């Protein structure tokens, strides 16, 4: 499938290289956002083995929380400019991340923790329920239509030869995603909490015996996952300038696919998967038809899993 895609693409890419470059740029920026959502999926799955269907909606909430905050700080489209804007955006982003993180911890406390020892599918259903609740709340708050998100990032573009160019927006989105992934990887690999997370993911009971506070570790995982999703939601808003209450559904599905694609539970895998899905989506939309984009994405996913049953970077875990 992947080979077919490459064969189909190669002549058309050669015919118009600058269009091709443009699509790569678009795919990277798109994929960076998927990667941010996928990280939350993969971390939560790694530690409690739950497909957190509400995660995509936490991502949307990131965008929705940013809207009133941006207004409250007095930022206005076409009016505000200068370096002050970025400082304020950073403050807003931190607040949004704090809000979504706290919210996700509350969700975990209310809907998932009581069911930790229940049959496996029970928390899956509450996750679906939480997703409906969050979407319902956003629907009541902002209605069913697209909500405009202020265009605050610079619109300068750097030429890349031919008619292709990379926007400052693209660079900011990609850079932010890279930085967040690197920070997260370092955190999980080196910090004490990160070590506790890995221990809990590997064997919850043994970790508890070693003095790891399981509840706090799991809550922290949900917090970090939601922080990244919230940041992703705000970045999505700044990049596409529109948000909608059910945005998280499709994005969440693609992001979860990205997490599985890279090997669920693996942070670099999720980032890689996100980029890959973003690329496939960009190419399919641009060169074929957007109607078949999810067919491409999911067919490639199925094929990858057939040949690498644990994803691209996933390791075979011994059976418990």
């Amino acid at each position, binding site marked *: 499938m992947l080979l077919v895609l490459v064969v189909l693409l190669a002549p058309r890419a050669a015919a118009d290289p600058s269009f091709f470059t443009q699509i790569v740029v678009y795919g990277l920026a798109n994929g960076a956002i998927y990667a941010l959502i996928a990280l939350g999926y993969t971390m939560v*799955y790694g530690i409690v*083995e739950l*497909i957190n269907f509400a995660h995509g909606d936490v991502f949307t909430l990131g965008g929705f929380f940013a809207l009133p905050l941006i207004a409250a700080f007095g930022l206005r489209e076409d009016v505000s400019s200068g370096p002050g804007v970025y400082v304020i955006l950073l403050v807003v982003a931190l607040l949004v991340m704090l809000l979504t993180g706290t919210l996700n911890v509350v969700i975990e406390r*209310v*809907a998932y923790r*009581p*069911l930790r020892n*229940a*049959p*496996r*599918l*029970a*928390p*899956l*259903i*509450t996750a*679906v*329920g*939480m*997703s*409906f*609740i*969050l*979407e*319902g*709340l956003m*629907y*009541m708050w902002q209605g069913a239509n697209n909500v405009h998100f202020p265009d605050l990032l610079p619109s300068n573009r750097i030429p890349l030869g031919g008619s292709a160019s990379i926007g400052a927006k693209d660079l900011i989105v990609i850079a932010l995603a890279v930085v967040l992934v690197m920070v997260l990887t370092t955190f999980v690999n080196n910090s004490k909490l990160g070590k506790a997370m890995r221990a809990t993911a590997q064997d919850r009971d043994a970790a508890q015996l070693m003095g790891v506070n399981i509840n706090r570790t799991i809550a922290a995982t949900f917090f970090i996952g939601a922080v990244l999703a919230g940041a992703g939601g705000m970045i999505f808003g700044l990049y596409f300038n529109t948000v909608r209450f059910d945005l998280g559904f499709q994005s969440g*599905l693609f992001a*979860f*696919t990205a997490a*599985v694609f890279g090997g*669920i539970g693996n942070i670099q895998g999720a980032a890689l998967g996100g980029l890959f899905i973003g690329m496939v989506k960009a190419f399919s939309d641009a060169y074929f*038809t957007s*109607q*078949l984009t*999810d*067919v491409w*994405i*999911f*067919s490639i*996913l*199925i094929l990858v*899993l*057939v040949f690498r*049953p*644990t*994803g691209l970077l996933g390791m075979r*875990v011994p*059976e*418990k």
Partner: protein
Amino acid sequence: MSRAKAPAANRLPSGRWSDRDTVILRLLLLGAILFPVFATLVTGGSGGALINTAADAGVYVLLAIGLNVVVGFAGLLDLGYAAFFAIGAYTYGMLASSQLFGSPLHHEIHLPFWLLLFVGMFVAAGFGAILGAPTLRLRGDYLAIVTLGFGEIVPSIFRYLGQGSVLGNWTGGVNGIAGIDPPSLPFGISGPWSGEALRILPRFDFVDPIAYYVLMVILVIVGVVAATNLHRSRLGRAWMAVREDEVAAAATGVNTVAIKLLAFSIGASFSGLAGTFYGAKLSLVSSENFAFVVSVTILIMVVLGGMGNIPGVILGALMIYYVLFNLLTNLPDLTANAASTIGLGFLNASHGDWPGLHDEVQRMNFLIFGLILVLVMLFRPQGLLPSRVREQELAKGVSEQAVFDLREES
């Protein structure tokens, strides 16, 4: 951990009146028979709409019974079950309408419903096997995501294969297939109940909702009997063994891949059957009717009702169907009326940000459904009517882990 496995086979519904599940099944059957009479009496002779809704609900009951075979019996999480539903419906739609006239075939095909009922089943089962064969080696949630992907791919392809696709117009694209043949019988009986003299008719077309209702009840009964017998069979015990502990099952000589493939195909065939009926009854199939939400809804019915237990699953399906398609759609009117009756009528008027109670409740639909799901699961994590084996385990703590714990697999 799997000590409860041996008694499991002995504690199946045994057909006694003292058995809870048997009693519930018989009550459900009685209710299904009495329902048309009840509906006609309640509405004063015009129970058509109610009976129509009940026939639609039956489609979901059949789907839930089928998914229960995959999830409840064999413990395989299937998040794309609606794909097989779509395959059944489109098979019927293409082979029993004028749709294929516009396709590269240039011929209409009008096969009889009764034949296509089986064709739909087998086509869906075949696709189940095609999807399952390469992917059933995957464990736990990797399988879930593959089925989810399949559930997204199938409606997308049906949506794409319309006017202007590379392969020609096979499925009507976004418009779907309309004008599908209704089922018909070579003979029928008219009588006083339809306001005519008692005589044998040469041909009987399904027009009246009651005809669909009767057909649906028959299909559900067939489905329940088939699923119950499967559960009791050697195959059913193998499914449970795989669900409890795949490694142990394989070690005792169960061919786990074949067993799982069978669960997948048989589950899919139920869905194909339901799809055929659905296409025939609605006389229209469109890819929108088979979205991911449908798969999730069926899964909710199974889990909420009580996985692995057929009466529980049926109850779950009926309840969720009622909440989604009846309660939530009528709730805005109900609350608005209630408000005016108890003197809070001023809430109904819209002013400023307040859209009026009716519209506000309408906006809350999503939220209410989500709350119901979360609350029911928090209070009854094992489902409303779990199988008795599992109930005893949870009560007496025979096993420290629940029977239907898919975690075993990963």
